[in-house]
């Protein structure tokens, strides 16, 4: 037992004992986040491309999806998928429900990032490609997207970090990820400050890892413009 001041007592041995459980919780967080990122990237790339596609129907559908998802809270979306879908006869495992809700949510943000990246490429690039006889699709694929990708990386990294932190919301549907694990340990030990500090550190370690990976890929991919 350590004591700081006269009546504040911290017991970090409780955190030490909790480390193995928190580590397990963190791996669940990492798993659910990476699956959601993969799903969100897939949806988001399609949605972002649809937003700039020459087809009006595609643009409208993608626009509606993005507006709806961004205009409603992630927590409500998680509840809708986990508690709402059974009313339609679709009973999902909490983990699957969590990944689906987070993936759909992230897809909307990724879609906007992808659209922004594409639209940030100067119009002259598309015109030059078309003038060489390329079709719109070829120009998009060979000229616009490779350039947009480099610009998309930093905001994409921010989105991944936000998603990892937001994954704490799936603790509400009984997934024993990092936050939920912390809560459970506290109900047993009552060491709120110590355990929550530990939980925060775990989150920070993971977001820091993501930001390093993104930074690394940025540097690998950069070309001067």
């Amino acid at each position, binding site marked *: 037992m350590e004591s700081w001041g006269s009546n504040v007592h911290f017991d970090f041995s409780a955190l030490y004992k909790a480390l193995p459980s928190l580590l397990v919780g963190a791996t669940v967080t990492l798993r659910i986040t990476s699956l959601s990122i993969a799903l969100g990237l897939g949806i988001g790339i399609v949605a972002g491309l649809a937003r700039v596609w020459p087809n009006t129907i595609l643009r409208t559908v993608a626009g509606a999806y993005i507006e709806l998802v961004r205009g409603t809270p992630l927590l409500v979306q998680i509840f809708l998928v986990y508690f709402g879908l059974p009313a339609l006869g679709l009973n999902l495992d909490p983990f699957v429900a969590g990944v689906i809700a987070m993936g759909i949510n992230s897809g909307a943000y990724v879609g906007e990032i992808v659209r922004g990246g594409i639209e940030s490429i100067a119009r002259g690039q598309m015109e030059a490609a078309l003038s*060489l006889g390329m079709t719109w699709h070829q120009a998009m694929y060979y000229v616009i997207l490779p350039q947009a990708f480099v610009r998309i990386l930093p905001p994409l990294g921010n989105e991944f970090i936000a998603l990892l932190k937001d994954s704490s919301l799936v603790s509400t549907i009984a997934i024993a990820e990092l936050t939920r694990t912390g809560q459970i340990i506290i109900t047993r030990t009552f060491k709120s400050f110590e355990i929550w500090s530990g939980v925060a550190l775990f989150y920070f370690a993971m977001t820091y890892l993501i930001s390093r990976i993104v930074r690394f890929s940025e540097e690998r991919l950069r070309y001067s413009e």
Partner: protein
Amino acid sequence: MSEWVVEVRNLNKYFGRHHVLKDITLRVRFGEVVSIIGASGSGKSTLLRCLNGLEPIQSGEIFIDGVCITANGVNLSKVRQSIGMIFQSFNLFPHMTALENVTLAPRKVKRMPRAEAERIALELLRKVGLEEKAHAYPAQLSGGQKQRVAIARSLAMNPKVMMFDEPTSALDPETVKDVLDVMKELAREGMTMIVVTHEMGFAREVSDRVVHLDDGRIVEEGPPEEIFYRPKHPRTREFLSKVINI
């Protein structure tokens, strides 16, 4: 095969309510070099952009080598393969080397094998004097070098006509000459060229015909000696007196 590479009949173009091109009729013969001169905002660049379908037109017809490109359902990509377009701002692809810039369209559009595309690209880069820059990225090139790579890139598609949209306007004065030399060489080889330019020296020396566009209308056209030394239209005289200091 038609006698004309480019034939424009009664073209009208509006930006909103602004009438930018007024009843333009223009024909360009194979092997001819036509310079389009005129004040800023007279519609020169817009005309060029209409000719390869980058700008929609409101009425009139445009034929490229006999193919009407303003008809419904025309395959614009196919037509554009025979029109080289050089932009004021180069528009090189910054994520590719000079060589990759030049080989991209032949490989992806014409499905040319890489080795053949590269052989042709290196030949063209040598022609524009930049063979040693084949593996440089656009950011490592000067403006004049970029524009010459852009010319090689267009030539790689073996176009029937080359269009230049103020190709030297964004260049440092000392690099203008290299680009103009390449263009002169092209003209000598018999390339059909339409050049929107402020380089009156080039227009006078190289063109077979000069077209003066004023406020969206062709007010005068003819051989350079006539346009530059005996202009008939008062607007042409006025324009030339402002740009030429002899």
